[in-house]
């Protein structure tokens, strides 16, 4: 087994953890952090593949993903603030109506 594979397995493990966090944690901030974990697991995978195949494309993708992740957390946090105003909490199980 080579290093590349270990890195891919690590990425997969991190991704799974992220998914579990997104699905299981009730706190919306934790959910957002889970999403960060997902994105970064993907980034790790991309960088590893890029290195393995000696191509720069994967690393470029990672730059985009990081930019998107930053934008996403800005939007996500502002939604979170609104959520708190409307429901008085940031627990996901309380926000079950689509009405703003």
């Amino acid at each position, binding site marked *: 087994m080579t290093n590349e594979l270990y890195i891919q397995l690590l990425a997969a493990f991190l991704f799974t953890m992220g998914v579990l966090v*997104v699905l299981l944690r009730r706190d919306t901030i934790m*959910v957002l952090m889970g999403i960060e974990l997902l994105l970064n697991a993907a980034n790790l995978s991309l960088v590893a593949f890029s290195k393995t195949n000696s191509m720069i494309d994967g690393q470029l993708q990672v730059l985009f993903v990081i930019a998107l992740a930053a934008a996403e957390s800005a939007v996500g946090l502002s939604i979170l603030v609104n959520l708190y105003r409307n429901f008085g909490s940031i627990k*996901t199980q309380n926000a*079950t109506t689509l009405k703003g």
Partner: protein
Amino acid sequence: MNVETMNSLLPLLILISPLIGFMINGVVLPLKLKGFAKTDPNVAGGFATFFIFLSFVMGCIAFSQLTGSTSENPAVYTYVFQWFDFGGLNIPFELRIDKLSGILVLIISGVGTLIHLYSTSYMHDEECVGRYFSYLNLFCFCMLLLVMGNNLPLLFFGWEGVGLCSYLLIGFWYTDTEKANAGKKAFVVNRVGDLGFLIGMFLLFRELGTLSLTEINTMLADPTVVARIMPSVTLICLALFVGATGKSAQIPLYVWLPDAMSGPTPVSALIHAATMVTAGVYMIARLNPLFELSPVALEVIAHVGAFTALFAGSIAIAQTDIKKVLAYSTVSQLGFMFLACGVGAYQTAVFHLMTHAFFKALLFLGSGSVIHACSGEQDMTKMGGLKKYLPHTHFTMLIGSLAISGIPFFSGFFSKDEILYSSIALPGGVSYLFLVGVLTAALTAIYTGRMMSLTFYSEERMSHDVKHHLHESPALMTFPLYVLAFLAAFGGFLGVPHLLGDYLGHMPHFLSHWLAPVVPAKHLPLVGVKMPLHEGVVMAGSSVIAIASFFGGVALFKKITFISDLVSGLAPVQKLLSNKYYIDELYGVIVVNPVKKISAFAAGIVDKYVVDGAVNGLGRGVRAVGSTLRAVQTGDLQTYGLMMLGGVLLVALFIFKVLV
């Protein structure tokens, strides 16, 4: 054969003219005046009469073109447009007036005009005369289409059209349930017959690949074609004949016609004399080369005809309603026509059709005049002695009665005698059919005499009020009566038989010569140089019977109403006859009740539980699925996320399976 086809617009114009009348009375005037009720009776009647008269005039022109032609089988022909053209089925909308349909066109439009004219006065005080006249015009349009259409679908179009119009006209007074039901009965019974007609038509198309009448009749001259269709020809003929029994009120489908009497009297005259009921006879005469191929079918036709003639004639003798007597008389006379067709004397059937149109229209319009005079009374037991109050009606009706009874030298004598003679002299003839015919002829004379006697001669039995109002009908009604009386008296001279023709200075049998190219006259083996005696014996015998029966009937029923009044032992027979052999009740038990039961079952059980159950069950099922799925729609973000994950995994699995 020398065939000449003249292209001309005349048939189309003849056809369209009553349709214009229908549009004016049925659409234009009601739209303009906002409703049928506001049309002036004289205006409506005037338009309607004018347009059918226009048809008659153009019919005369077309007829003169036929007589003017030197060829043996001339026809005036219009190709209007291609109606159907797909899958080998090619049906042009084409109209054709040849020697047979020419006669029918003249009868329909001519007698029709008189009936329209008469209606203008007869229906003057009714409501919605505009509606009445529009239907009347539409009726004539359909009938003209029926006789002029040069292929079976067109003929069927007209055939259905007259069925529809008879429904509309019989049920004209639709607020009266009984009358509306009579209309429905006519419609439903006719549908049964139409099914037979359709089947016959389809079979014919399968065998010959064409539905054009001219093509059918030409193809049947080819021996190879004949050999090909021989196996199914009996079936085709019988199916077509079922259609004819419906329209022409023969056993077993005659029951609608007597009930149809509840419509306005001129309608009865139109249906019975000039149009609808003769359609069956016309159709068989038209397709005579086809029917010639099936001796079995012809035998059936002859028997049904003869039996119907006797059967209806015997019912007629026990009726008290003047119009019912005439209705059964029509059924009986149509039976005569089918008897003639059945023994192969098609041109004789057409001859009788023509004379019948004259005298039956006359009798119906006369009875209408009587009913009109008696303030709507139709029961003959409440009439009597009307001769001195209604001299014109009496005189014309007497001529009609003499004609239908077959008194010598009136029109009915010639045609009926010819039928009787054909039924024994032609190869298809059978001696007992001849005897049935003779018996029916005697019955006809008796019940006609009875009708005249009860109405005009016996002592007065009217109620005081009716008597007070008695009046002769206006000129607009008596004029058509006189015209028809003239035709009924002298119409028979178009078909003077050989024997008499020789004595009267070689007067030819005009009609059978005229029809010969379309409806070939059969050679009568017993006629001719060798044995003129037979024809003379039949003729003399039937004259004696007719005269004796008619005047016997008149004399007998001056004092009594029913034969059972004289011979008390006949009371059960009388009861049986006046209840029309309980046929309606029988049909009620055999056909109507089971259908009602099935309907009740279908409505009560099948519809309620099966159909409603299926529909409601479907609704309930969807709701149950919905309420189950609703539990999933929690709005909880993470549940959705889990489902998405599940979906993604499934798709991934699928892709993995496909790719690897």
